[in-house]
């Protein structure tokens, strides 16, 4: 029972976020979004940039563990 709580919350959260995401992309087609830089005015550019940046940050961070991660008591040794 308890396990379903978080799972169902996660599922409905995902659903709403996807709906909002879709709406935001659709909105982009209804008006001309002014930006400081013309290439950022391409449809869905901030969305694409956000998605790619996020994945990049997490993946690079994960990779950096190879170099930066030590045992918890590293400084006590």
């Amino acid at each position: 029972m308890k396990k379903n709580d978080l799972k169902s919350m996660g599922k409905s959260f995902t659903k709403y976020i996807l709906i909002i995401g879709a709406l935001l992309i659709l909105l982009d087609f209804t008006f001309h979004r002014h930006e400081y830089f013309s290439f950022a005015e391409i449809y869905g550019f901030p969305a694409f940039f956000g998605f790619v940046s996020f994945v990049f940050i997490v993946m690079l961070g994960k990779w950096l563990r190879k170099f930066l991660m030590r045992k918890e008591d590293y400084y006590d040794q």
Partner: protein
Amino acid sequence: MISSFVPGLIMIITSFLLPTIPQYFRHPAMLLSVGLSALSLFNGYGTFLEWDILGLNLILYQSDSLTLPFAIIFHIAAILVIIFSWHSKNLMEHMATLAYAGSAIGALHAGDFFSLFIWWEATALTSVFIVFAGNTNVAKDAAMRYLIIQVSSGVLLLIGACLMLYQTGNHNLAVLDLKTNFGIFIFIAFGIKAAFPLLNGWLQDSYPESSVTGTVALSAFTTKLAIYALARTFPGTDSLIWIGAIMTAFPVFFAVIENDLRRVLSFSLNNQLGFMVVGIGIGTELSLNGTVAHAFVHIIYKALLFMSMGAVLYRAGTTKASELGGLYKYMPFTTIFCIIGAMSISAFPLFSGFVAKSLIMSSLGGMGMVLIYFILFFASAGVLEHSGIKIPYFAFFAHERKNKVKEAPINMLIAMGIAAFLCIAIGVFPKYLYQILPYAVEYQPYTLDHVISQLQLLVFAIIAFLFLVKFKLYPSEIRSTVLNSDWFYRKMLPGIGKPLFKKIGLLTDSLYKNLGLSFKQVLSKSYKFSNLSYIKVTTPSFAGTILISILFIMLVIVLV
């Protein structure tokens, strides 16, 4: 009469009186002292107190449009910290916190580099006790390192001030550049406290080791005092733009893999300082307004986030992501407040981060700085990752929790509630924040373009998170230490230094042994001669050698 005191001084005096006040009245007394200090906010602009000493004119109390917003937010932060720590009976920490906040407020009102130096060191000496209050061996070690670095920053500031006085005959706070040697000293002094790249190790080393309440106090003052000082003395310094951009981007990757959530917040603090430093580097009225606005809102939401993690530490006993999760059921209010803080720092529209960050982004866009603009835009996705998602997700959700814990004490909830209210109030009514900024600038953060652009960035970054979790690509939390720039002086230097000193020690020991022997021989000959048989000569150890040398040097200094 009290309003003509140096602001903050009354808080320091009260802090020293705290031991004489019964426990029950300590917190009201602390609040009262902050209230009395805050009366100075209504004094207007000008120079109110100077002191001629040793031929120097010290400006102890001045106020202008740049000091005022910082003074307001420092007082608010002090009040939040006091309420948040209402349940605590740790006298030393209360004294240190109040004196620390008072010193930081005093520093804002200093008009010359020597007065600033005094307050600069005062914030170091008071805040180190807050790190100590973590009351673990790790905290005590971190406190010592913290003290050394903070005091070094002060010493550099003093050297800069002396050189400036010697070369220009002036020591008042003024706009400096990096073409002068004193400018460079002062720049590095400020840079240490502002946690510039590679000078940042102390921040992530010490803040997470402090107590439940201590970290909240630490997060508010030192670094923002440095931002204030940079904004006053180095506006428009080009190199700050790049330094700031690096500060926004790099801590992001460390925050992804860090396990201790209070340390994640310390990396995040570093990243936020980057935005402010970029604003100072651009140096236009709009960007400086952006820096001040960002410092203002940042103090509130960062305090809120640290308070929520403090509450978690207080109730669950840890802030390690690998051991948390599922707290939303037991600490629902803390969860909500934390999410409000997370949305503010991520700059969702209608939250305070949005109305402040927009000023800096607009000034970058307006100047056509495309690369920096997108580094900061990229870093915004990073902020969402570590502060917006990671903090609330791993503490309160992630997976179900087996052990029950209680909701945070009422005083903590009140402090978090006030901070959360301010986050939303400023986000919804930004004009009140804009009114107290240094320059009068007409600015509208809520344009359709801007709101949609920001929402697209944030929502699709969240979708990326869900995608990574769904496909099990999101890195799991591992109990670990993440190397940071403090590694250089915690591992590398001792790694080189210890064997080196050992060698030098052996060398001097053997040298001394030989010298000692020959000395002995001379002596034995001499006391054979004088027949003083009670003289005993032993071979001094390495420590003895050092001691004797120090005594000798002191003697020379005294004689000279």
